[in-house]
């Protein structure tokens, strides 16, 4: 047991970011952490709580009880699988510490269990607040007892156990009985296919809503008569058991449900540990990070293909190649930008027969119901959040990892290097937002001037978040990471950038709304004002980056 504890301790320490060297930066860092937790995470939890409260209260009138909370818990569980599968594969099979740990006299079950625990703790720290918010929302709507509260607190920390155990079991079976997944590239392909399959299933599932009467659907949902919930309950039985254990029906049924909940989790984790004991080492045999290609070309051909490029263009190509060739960066920084058109599609599908979008489009065309204002706010919101979410700016320095020293000894000014990184972030973020704006503008019949204005506003917003992210990442980049996914997952700067971007978005959108509703300023004037404000903010944050971020990079001890 002590070996297990020590291993978990070591793995957790490796996951953490550490504090900056200088006192000033340490204070800034702690302050940023406090701000993000109190201003972003807590409102997020409140929002989830409010959603659960709303759904539960509404369904209660229709005879429902735990359907609202179950829905949110299912979503959290599905996301745990989506995000966890890659992490578990990486931690168990492709982390560099494995070659040091394997020769040690440690049982495979202990090693795999310790790695699983570290991955579980690292992955689920953020969702604790969200799950807690969901439970509070439920209790406010349905009432609660002390027993329910105790079960809920236990559930907050243990809900992702089953999905993570699934990920662990899948990874052990795949690595033990298949030779084609012995390199990381193949595993990345497998997890990408799994992820795409989930997305396609969601889209197909939502497409079926097109011909559904929404009221009837909700009524069935309240009665628990829902095929999707039934399927999910078979896959993730812990969700319904936990939901039952916190429902205030009877104390006996709550206790029985909770015992069953614990039992299912224990069984799942035990299966993982047993499989780990017998198969973990088998899966590790023959692991190769990258398959060697036999395509060795003639040297003259290879060298003659060389081209001379400018420093900036060459640096740009290097960055782009790494972003596109590294699965973790490709998925989390590049492909995440296409989530927005998918999101748009989901909204279209979710309207069912109500067709509320048509009403919105007609209002926009007639310039009624403040639709022009909501579109402007939507543009600002999406541009700021897309850029913060893709983390291209806020991981720009961290992505260099242990090779950060390269940035420092080549004869290229730091600001040039930063600008190339920023340009890539701006370009990739803007392409996604641009497509989104153009499609929306065509549907809305917005006209060239409005479309151009939306594009400019979003471009300025993207520039702001990009340089803000680079500056934040320069304060305390996470340069020690095991694989590229860890560079993104364990990098708090990405959360800081998201937090500050959300605060900025709220402030800007709040100001726009206030000026519109209180001072009756026309939307076109607000659009131009927003553009000017964003431009000023861009100049400020660019100059801060030019001075402070460069200084931070120079002072980095690497």
């Amino acid at each position: 047991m002590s070996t297990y504890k020590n291993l978990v301790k070591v793995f957790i320490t490796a996951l953490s970011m550490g504090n900056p060297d200088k006192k000033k930066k340490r204070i800034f860092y702690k302050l940023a952490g406090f701000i993000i937790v109190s201003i972003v995470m807590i409102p997020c939890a409140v929002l989830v709580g409010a959603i659960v409260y709303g759904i539960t209260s509404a369904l209660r009138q229709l005879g429902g009880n735990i359907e609202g909370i179950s829905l949110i818990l299912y979503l959290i569980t599905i996301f745990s699988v989506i995000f966890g599968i890659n992490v578990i594969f990486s931690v168990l099979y492709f982390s560099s510490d494995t070659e040091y740990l394997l020769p040690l006299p440690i049982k495979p079950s202990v090693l795999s269990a310790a790695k699983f625990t570290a991955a579980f703790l690292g992955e689920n720290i953020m969702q604790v607040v969200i799950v807690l918010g969901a439970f509070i929302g439920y209790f406010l709507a349905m009432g609660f007892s002390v027993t329910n509260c105790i079960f809920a607190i236990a559930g907050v920390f243990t809900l992702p156990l089953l999905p993570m155990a699934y990920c662990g079991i899948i990874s052990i079976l795949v690595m033990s009985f298949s030779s084609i997944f012995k390199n990381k590239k193949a595993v990345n392909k497998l997890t990408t296919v799994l992820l795409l399959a989930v997305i396609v299933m969601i889209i197909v599932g939502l497409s079926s809503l097109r011909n559904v009467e929404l009221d009837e659907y909700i009524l069935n949902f309240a009665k628990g008569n829902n095929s999707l919930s039934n399927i999910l309950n078979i896959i993730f039985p812990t969700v319904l058991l936990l939901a039952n254990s916190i429902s205030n029906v009877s104390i006996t049924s709550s206790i029985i449900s909770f015992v069953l909940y614990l039992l299912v989790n224990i069984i799942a984790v035990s299966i993982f540990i047993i499989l780990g004991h017998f198969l973990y080492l088998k899966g590790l045999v023959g692991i190769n990070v990258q398959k060697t290609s036999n395509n060795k070309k003639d040297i003259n051909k290879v060298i003659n293909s060389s081209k001379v490029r400018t420093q900036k263009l060459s640096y740009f190509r290097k960055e782009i190649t790494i972003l596109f060739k590294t699965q973790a960066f490709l998925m989390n920084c590049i492909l995440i930008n296409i989530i927005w058109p998918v999101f748009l599609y989901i909204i279209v599908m979710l309207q069912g027969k109500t067709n509320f979008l048509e009403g919105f489009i007609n209002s926009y065309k007639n310039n009624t119901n403040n639709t022009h204002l909501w579109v402007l706010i939507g543009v600002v919101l999406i541009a700021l959040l897309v850029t913060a979410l893709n983390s291209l700016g806020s991981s720009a320095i961290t992505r260099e990892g242990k090779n950060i020293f390269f940035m420092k000894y080549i004869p290229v000014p730091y600001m040039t290097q930063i600008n190339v990184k920023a340009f890539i972030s701006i370009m990739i973020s803007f392409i996604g937002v641009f497509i989104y704006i153009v499609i929306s503008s065509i549907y809305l019949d917005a006209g060239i001037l409005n479309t151009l204005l939306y594009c400019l506003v979003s471009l300025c917003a993207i520039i702001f978040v990009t340089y803000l992210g680079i500056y934040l990442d320069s304060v305390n980049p996470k340069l020690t990471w095991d694989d590229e996914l860890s560079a993104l997952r364990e990098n708090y700067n990405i959360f800081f950038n998201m937090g500050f971007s959300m605060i900025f978005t709220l402030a800007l959108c709040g100001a726009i709304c206030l000026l519109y509703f209180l001072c009756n300023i026309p939307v076109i004037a607000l659009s131009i004002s927003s553009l000017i404000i964003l431009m000023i903010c861009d100049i400020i944050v660019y100059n801060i980056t030019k001075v402070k971020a460069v200084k931070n990079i120079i002072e980095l001890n690497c």
Partner: protein
Amino acid sequence: MIKVENISKSFNNKVKAVDNLSFTVNDGEIVGFIGPNGAGKTTTMKMMTGILPIENGDIFLNDYSIKTDTLKAKEILGYIADSPDMFLRLKGIDFLNFIADIYKISLDERKERIKEFAGKFDLEKELSQTMQSYSHGMRQKMMVIAALVHNPAVWILDEPLIGLDPKSAYELKSMMRNHADKGNSVLFSTHILEVAEKLCDKVVIINKGRSVFMGTLDDLKLKYQNKTLEEIFLTLTN
């Protein structure tokens, strides 16, 4: 020429990694930088290349201060770091072209050098592969080529022989000698005293961030007569 003038560096304001260190590598010289683990060799080399900021003192590479003429100084140095695991997603040829672009090397010049070095280090058939598929030794060879592809006047090599096969180590040592013979400066760190003995014109031995000896190996042996090089090293660093 490399001129190190009273440089100091501490980490977290506590640990003094380099303490008022001074030495010179003249044109035409190969200088071995020797010291036990944690003596401050890599820290000093990182300060020479601009990777670490210098707290006190200054370093001049062919009269360019790394503090004030940073870009000029960086242009004329070739640096091999102690870790070769860099840009592994890139193909070997793309990495070398990237480095050549950074140092603004003409097309003909880079083609000629890449071909020459790839031949010397037996990497001809590997250039079209991504570096992730390379062995540790092959990656180290690639770092050597990348450091020298722009024909820098000043070579700063941190443990350059580690991971190289005997043929490649021999090639690199010959290249170091030739480069110095052409009137350039080479500073390299090593733990292998025999290599230092055979290759270096001078050695700088440091311990706990301070210089404990500077001069030729003959001077050193004269000072500590009847002792082997190993014994002298242990005496100086204990």
